[in-house]
């Protein structure tokens, strides 16, 4: 943290404290998003601020009793410094993003963003939400999280003939750059896991919640490899490089032939097979063979749907494909 940051904070600290005589160190630290020690240091310095040059000086009066703070004689800084244009834009963008996905649940987000946009002078031609995230979010899931009820999800693992129904305790939806994840405790498979893009799924409100405590707060939506995971190597062409962002990688290697090699582990090879299929030939499974076979089987049965004869298509479904995801 630079001296500049410290100055900006102190110029804000004074008006904040003038409004709240007797605020506690902890409250101040929370409001400014810094450590209590930083606030202590700021207050120590503030005691030497004001107009030191005039006669004996005309300094701010900072009194700390216990952990309570009172600032007086600082009316020169009665109002806060305007946020810089860049700070203002970043704040509007942040709140816009949150209002976009949670504005229905927390209406104050929307009214607040309107007010700060006007006050900070950020026009809609500089920052705007042109199409909201609404359609991406399943309201059934959102309602279930709020009402703390379980949800039955028909999740069709790739390669599986039919959907399996899973019972989950959902506790958060996460939106990461246009993709959403469901954070849930999965009773059917056991364990707490992020379900990426639960879009091959239908959700119904399930039975009332079990009589036990809530699960702990959600971990970040990062996949953590487990001991039973399948080790996978994908080789991708230029057009399949987006896969590197779509999965959590152990390693990636540029090959001399211009291809990219992705090393990863997964507990949901069926989902991975779907991703490989989405790359439309721009990605190949180097290992394991079972996953490679799964991709081929999926592509073959999908391709068969476009055969001239309907009967030919109907008979060409995948057979005997393992559902890795359910194992």
């Amino acid at each position, binding site marked *: 943290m630079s001296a500049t940051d410290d100055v900006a904070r102190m110029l804000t600290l004074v008006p904040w404290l003038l409004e709240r005589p007797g605020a506690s160190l902890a409250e101040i630290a929370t409001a400014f998003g810094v450590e209590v020690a930083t606030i202590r240091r700021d207050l120590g310095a503030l005691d030497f*601020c004001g107009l030191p040059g005039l006669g004996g000086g005309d300094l701010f009066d900072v009194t700390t009793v216990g952990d309570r703070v009172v600032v007086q004689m600082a009316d020169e800084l009665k109002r806060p410094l305007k946020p810089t244009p860049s700070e203002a834009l970043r704040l509007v963008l942040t709140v816009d993003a*949150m209002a976009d996905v949670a504005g229905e649940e927390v209406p104050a987000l929307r009214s607040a963003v309107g007010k*700060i946009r006007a006050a900070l002078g950020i026009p809609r031609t*500089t920052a705007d939400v042109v199409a909201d995230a609404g359609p991406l979010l399943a309201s059934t899931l959102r309602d279930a999280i709020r009402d703390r009820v379980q949800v039955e999800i028909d999740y069709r693992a790739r390669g599986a003939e039919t959907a399996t129904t899973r019972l989950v305790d959902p506790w958060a939806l996460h939106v990461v*750059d246009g993709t959403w994840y469901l954070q849930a405790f999965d009773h059917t498979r056991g364990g707490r896991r992020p379900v990426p893009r639960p879009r091959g799924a239908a959700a119904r409100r399930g039975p009332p919640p079990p009589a036990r405590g809530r699960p702990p707060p959600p971990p970040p939506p990062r996949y953590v490899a487990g001991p039973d995971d399948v080790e996978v190597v994908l080789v991708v062409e230029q057009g399949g490089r987006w896969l590197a962002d779509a999965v959590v990688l152990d390693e990636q290697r540029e090959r001399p032939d211009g291809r990219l090699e992705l090393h990863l582990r997964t507990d949901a090879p069926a989902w991975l097979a779907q991703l490989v299929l989405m790359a439309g030939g721009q990605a190949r499974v*180097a290992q394991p063979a079972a996953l490679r076979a799964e991709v081929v089987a999926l592509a073959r049965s999908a391709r068969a749907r476009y055969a001239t004869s*309907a009967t030919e298509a109907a008979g060409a479904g995948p057979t005997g494909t393992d559902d890795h995801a359910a194992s």
Partner: protein
Amino acid sequence: MTAKVERLVNLTVALLETRRPLTLRELKQRTGYYDQADGAAARRMFERDKDELRRLGVPVTVAPVPHSEEQGYLVPRREYELADIELTGEEVAALGLAVRLTGAEGTPLALAKLAARAPDPVALPEPTTRVELSVDAVDAIADAVVRRRSVRFGYRRADGTDGRRAVDPFAVVRRRAAWYVVGRDHDRDALRAFRLDRMTDEPRAFGDDDAFTVPDDLDVERAVAGPEEEGVPVLLAVAPAARWAVELRGGARTGRTHADWPVYELPGLHPWRDRSWILGLGPDVVVLDPPRLRDAVVAALDAVLAPGADAPGSEPT
């Protein structure tokens, strides 16, 4: 460090408190700083401090001093102070929630400025939805937008090819939960939109401030929709297992069926991205129309099934 922080705060107070421009000599008397025997050194120190305050957003103004050849300095209170914003305790809490849940660094201070004279936040229920931002990219772009500086970044197009772009960033917009920067692409000399999550490195500003002007008739919504986003209506036959996915995407039943599956119409699909979305649904959908998309899906499936597809082919190195 502390001495410098104190000096900058006190300089701000002195410049705010005065009604008329103060010369450096007067500032020396008022603050007790800049009293080096070497006048040039004192001047240099003051100039550095002044620049630093300006970076913070303190509007240090230079003005002529009456009956003197010297320049004077002051901070006009009206330009310095943030006018009161009538925020409710709920709104303050909502702003705090947004800053906390998105983990945007640097925004807590901006929030503290807004909240300094507002009511204390009330307790709000935790929303069920969280959002993560590509904070670094958003920060870099926001800074370039307000300073009107061009930026350069690596970018992966929707078709997967990589390239470098140089852009005059006009605006940042959000569309269907993704961020875009809208601006003039230097190479194409045309308005383009770029998704922040497709940038392959952090955008870097280059060149001078105020390097461009934003066109008066800028239509951000149209820019984001862009020519390559122009959608075509698509007809899909959908198996029961994929119905939910198609409906979530905005598909509506037409009432017709195709080989026992209901036929859905989707209003406008993107030629690249949606080809891969359809591929991901595997054997559960059949593209009926338009023929161009149908052919593209068939060609992609053929590519997956190309000779050698079920052999390892490419061994890991």
